[in-house]
């Protein structure tokens, strides 16, 4: 069904239309938030809040200016950043020490083995770099959509991702050498 029509109906209070939107967008969005947070309970709260905003603030979405998935990623990204800020857990963008301690990850959300190293390494890079890599690598968002979500130019996005990937490579190679 036409997504624009579903959004219109959802904004008008049609729960069945809203349910279809949730069913379609929940899996990719939950993957994004879980990789951002690496904590099941925190991720759950942010995913729920993101979709409740679709219900309560759906009228603010402009179908012509962005895809719904971009709009939802934008909300989720901002909620993640707000959460890290409120809890004093932001990783400084200027961090030159890639091997910082992070909060404990939850095994339910990842496969065994190397995935844990990657999750740990992901949590050591600044949130905007992490978000950019997740959106481009896992979510399949285009560079322009990702730049829109992060509120940066495409050039700045490339810089963020390049720095993030370099830190990831460094952290992962350090982990393997330690093992």
């Amino acid at each position: 069904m036409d997504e624009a029509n579903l959004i219109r109906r959802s904004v008008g209070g049609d729960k069945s239309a809203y349910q279809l939107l949730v069913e379609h967008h929940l899996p990719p969005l939950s993957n994004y938030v879980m990789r951002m947070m690496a904590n099941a309970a925190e991720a759950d709260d942010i995913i729920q809040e993101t979709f409740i905003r679709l219900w309560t603030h759906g009228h603010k979405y402009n179908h012509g200016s962005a895809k719904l998935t971009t709009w939802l990623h934008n909300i989720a990204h901002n909620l993640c950043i707000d959460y890290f800020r409120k809890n004093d857990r932001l990783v400084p963008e200027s961090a030159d020490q890639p091997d910082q301690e992070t909060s404990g990850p939850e095994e339910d959300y990842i496969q065994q083995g190397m995935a844990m190293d990657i999750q740990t390494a992901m949590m050591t890079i600044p949130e905007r770099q992490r978000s950019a890599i997740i959106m481009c690598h896992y979510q399949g968002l285009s560079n322009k959509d990702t730049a829109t979500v992060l509120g940066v130019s495409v050039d700045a996005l490339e810089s963020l991702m390049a720095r993030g990937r370099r830190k990831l490579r460094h952290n992962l190679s350090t982990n393997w050498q330690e093992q």
Partner: protein
Amino acid sequence: MNITRFQQLLDAYGTREKNWPEEEREAALALLRSDAECVSLMQHYRSLDEQLDDYVTRTPPGLGQKILNQLPVPLIDQIIGWLIPDVSSQIWRPAIAGSLPLILGMIIGASTMGSFLDDTGTENNWDEEIYLFALDDTSLMGSVDE
């Protein structure tokens, strides 16, 4: 597209061609086919993408239903839900909502009816009230000199 830009693409977007900018993808692939250095660079950068692919997440079961259950309920639905919690059919809700003013009117009417009742519970007549007032009013009689 040149080798410098190709390396910048790998640096930022990795080795998955679907992740490269759409407008540069074809040119990058053409360079990759023609330049052995590009192939070597791809091999160098590939391991990170493979490691990233190992990081799989899954949607928590029941989360979709949890979201639907937590939607804010409109005020009128809250009132009806409070009045009649077990209304199973949505079709009755407008009818019940429409009858609320009638019920409210009946309640107000019943509560103000008490002021028209005297202590014995019998209904007063307005004409009788005015007549009794007139009898009590001595000012209508004028002054009498004795």
